[in-house]
């Protein structure tokens, strides 16, 4: 194992899969000559050339749909959105075309495409650039939705996504690109299967489910809860939001009898609400308290730093929620 950054993990996955399968190519805004707006695709143009690392104009609906068409007839595109905020321009292509290809063709035409890019708030980029798109895409049957929190998961899950025959929405954390973590050596060729949650921290005091940027907020909160309250929290990262590994979450709740779900997307619906719904039905008799949620506050993201800080999930809000769930 070695330590690399999340950004490098994503790049390695693309590089290795492009070497492995020449049908795989990368397409999007500034992915080639500019080396990626977030430097994720750095070096890929030099390695694979303009045929397989394709710079596009600012035409999201166009290049997303072009990717879908190419995927239906033999290629395996990776479509980068500079950020997921711009995927709204391409929403129709993803929902009406990518997600429907298999069923509309009677299961005869697969659509092996990955849409990827940074998701979530960054630092004060304001309302049109701060979306957590998880709820929009998890609602769509026909799509898989992945959101890795660690470099290892980013690499292993992206490799699986690229090998997958269905369209995959791959949500990277805009603020996670510099996070360092252990990742297996290249020879290991680790592909992490979809639908398997990861228990990041074991405990019997309270289950906390979290992914993306709030995952790190939750790890900090869990440590403080241990130190300040002697409460051992179990932290579960679902890693893929669709398919959702509800079994691992429910198993944890049956042990801790308490559950808090923490996410950056807005509170109305979404995978956060879905997890709460499934847990209360599957583990009703084991729960000792209502399930709590910590989400972004229900407003378009304001620019002002004091307001933005207020909106995003933070350690104190997680601790308060756990204390309510644990009657502390």
């Amino acid at each position, binding site marked *: 194992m070695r330590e690399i950054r999340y950004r490098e993990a994503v790049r390695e996955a693309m590089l290795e899969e492009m070497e492995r399968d020449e049908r795989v190519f990368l397409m999007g*805004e*500034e992915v080639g*000559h*500019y080396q990626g*707006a977030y430097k994720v695709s750095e070096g890929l143009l030099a390695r694979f050339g303009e045929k397989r690392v394709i*710079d*596009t*104009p*600012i*035409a*999201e*609906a*166009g290049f997303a749909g072009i990717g879908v068409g190419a995927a239906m007839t033999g290629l395996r595109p990776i479509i980068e959105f500079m950020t997921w*905020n*711009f995927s*709204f*321009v391409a929403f129709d292509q993803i929902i009406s075309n990518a997600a429907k290809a298999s069923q509309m063709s009677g299961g005869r035409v697969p659509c092996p495409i990955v849409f990827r890019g940074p998701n979530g708030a*960054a*630092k*004060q*980029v*304001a*309302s*049109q*650039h701060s979306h957590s798109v998880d709820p929009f895409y998890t609602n769509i049957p026909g799509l898989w939705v992945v959101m890795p929190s660690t470099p290892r998961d980013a690499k292993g899950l992206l490799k699986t996504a690229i090998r997958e025959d269905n369209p995959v929405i791959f949500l990277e954390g805009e603020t996670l690109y510099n996070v360092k973590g252990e990742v297996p050596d290249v020879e290991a060729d680790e592909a992490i299967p979809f639908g398997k949650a990861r228990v990041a921290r074991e405990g019997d005091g309270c289950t906390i489910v979290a992914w993306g940027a709030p995952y790190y907020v939750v790890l900090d909160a869990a440590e403080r809860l241990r130190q300040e309250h002697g409460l051992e929290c179990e932290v579960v990262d679902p890693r893929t939001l669709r398919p959702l590994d509800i079994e691992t979450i429910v198993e944890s709740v049956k042990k801790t009898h308490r559950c808090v779900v923490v996410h950056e997307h807005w509170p109305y619906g979404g995978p956060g609400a879905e997890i709460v719904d499934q847990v209360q039905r599957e583990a009703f008799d084991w729960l000792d308290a209502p399930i709590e949620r910590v989400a972004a*506050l*229900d*407003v*378009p993201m*304001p*620019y*002002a*730093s*004091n*307001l933005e800080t*207020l*909106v995003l999930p933070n350690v104190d809000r997680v601790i308060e929620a756990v204390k309510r769930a644990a009657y502390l």
Partner: protein
Amino acid sequence: MSLDDLGRDGAHALLREMLLIRRFEEKCAELYTQQKIRGFLHLYIGEEAIAVGALSALTADDNVLSTYREHGHALARGLGAGPIMAEMYGKAGGCALGRGGSMHLFDASRRFYGGNAIVGGHLPLAVGLALADKMLGRKAVTACFFGDGATAEGVFHESLNLAALWKLPVLFLCENNLYAMGTAIELHAADTEISRRPRAFGIPAERVDGMDVVAVERAVRYAAEAAREGEGPRFLELMTYRFRAHSMYDAELYRSKAEVQRWKERDPIQLFERALRERGWLDDDARARVENDVLGEVEAAVRFAEESPWEALEDLEKHVYVRRVGADEGGA
């Protein structure tokens, strides 16, 4: 208008406005490194003649929409350096109450509808404002600024077609600075002469030297008159260049230093200054007075921003919905 029609005072006003934008932007860059301004910051340095020329040809009743590179348009539209700077600080005294920041300057009282950060996203908005004006019998035009990169979006073509089909008073003002972020126009446009595209919809269009403030003023005035008289939309491709990186940081590997240098020799402020000096309308003293005047305005704006309070946390949700919605509620 020609320089003669503008007269000495008119010309000085344009020079002052361009210089204000230049100094304001330089101050923003400095404040960004001090982390007083955060998020994304796109500077207008090099392109000042367009905002100043275009907005001096419009009236207070006209509508203006711009992109995330809109500080120049906001200043030229009279939003005030203070409220603009306070917005970039995220303060309550900001023109969008600190909610928007650099990319989302807004002031309905000036009919300035953003500060829009989704490339191409505001083009149909502009057409809609013009539709309302036409339906309500107002004699206003809507000026919509956007970059060359935006012309690759599907919504660009939809907006042009609809504006032409319904003969709406829209001025499409394309700031062609030859790059969309790191992508040169040859790499994003099948036909790099953007002004040919609107002609396919029957929209009269022309290329204008966007470094010449007088030429911009004249072209926009003429286009606005036609649109105002019900002749439908007009399109101007304003040739310009941004002197700085796309946003605060980029390695600028996509263009050569020599190319940047060549364009800097056509600095719109220096070009105009030279023209005024040749006429004997500007000497060193007058130039120094403008400089001091502008620096004072920028300093005052920073002071205003520094002293402005933060929005109260309790007001977080205050403007997510308007409080009163009714048939009588038109735009501001």
